[in-house]
């Protein structure tokens, strides 16, 4: 089966301390589709509860359905209500294309690497 149309979804979560700020990081591998969207939602929710700032690494996600996009937008709103944010790391070319075509490119922020996404936390330690 071609990797880009695979239907599994694996995630890895960790907590990172950056200049006094706790940042929850979750990395996904696979495809976010109807079959895997519940798992995607649960892992985002679980990771988002750990810290107000949430980094979502999509570099190994080859497909994102529009429900998955909606889940990301919902989770971003949750993080903002906690005084934090949700930022994407390195979405694949296909995923960034889907984000753009869906009109979500202006509603979600993404960075090429994790450290760049955390740049503005420097000097803001509580």
């Amino acid at each position, binding site marked *: 089966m071609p990797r*880009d*149309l695979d239907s599994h979804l694996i995630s890895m979560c960790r907590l990172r301390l950056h200049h006094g700020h706790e940042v929850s990081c979750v990395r996904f591998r696979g495809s976010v589709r*109807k079959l895997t969207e519940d798992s995607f939602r649960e892992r985002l929710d679980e990771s988002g509860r750990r810290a107000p700032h949430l980094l979502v690494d999509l570099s190994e996600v080859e497909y994102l359905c*529009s429900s998955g996009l*909606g889940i990301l937008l919902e989770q971003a709103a949750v993080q903002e209500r906690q005084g934090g944010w949700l930022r994407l790391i390195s979405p694949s070319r296909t995923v960034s*294309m889907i984000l*753009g075509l869906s009109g979500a490119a202006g509603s979600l922020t993404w960075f090429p690497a994790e450290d760049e996404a955390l740049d503005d936390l420097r000097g803001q330690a509580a």
Partner: protein
Amino acid sequence: MRDALTSVIRKPEERALVLLAVEEAAVNILEHGYQNEEGRPLTIRICALEDDRFEVTLRDRAPLADVTRIVPGDLKELARRRASRGRGLALMRLLTTSMVHRPRPGGGNELILLFDPHHLARVIEEHFRNAA
């Protein structure tokens, strides 16, 4: 479905967009047509046409609903509101060259999505040009 798509469209990015449109159509049927009731029939058929074009036909036994007559949500407006849902039909329209609905004998719907790889290539090219 995934394997069959590989036989009619070679480029992974174009294939992902076709999958996006077809999955949106299928999810509409499951969520709105069948109200998420399990075990209801949904068949998806892919048929190659001339000039690299192909059509995907979805058949269900849900109550009659012609999605081609529904005005799709505005993607820009949905983005402005950061709406989490409502993009499916707009994406289907963006990615297909035509959508045809027919009632099925005995009840249900037939939805035919026509795809043209040249159109998909233009959508992709335009997206990356605007994003640059």
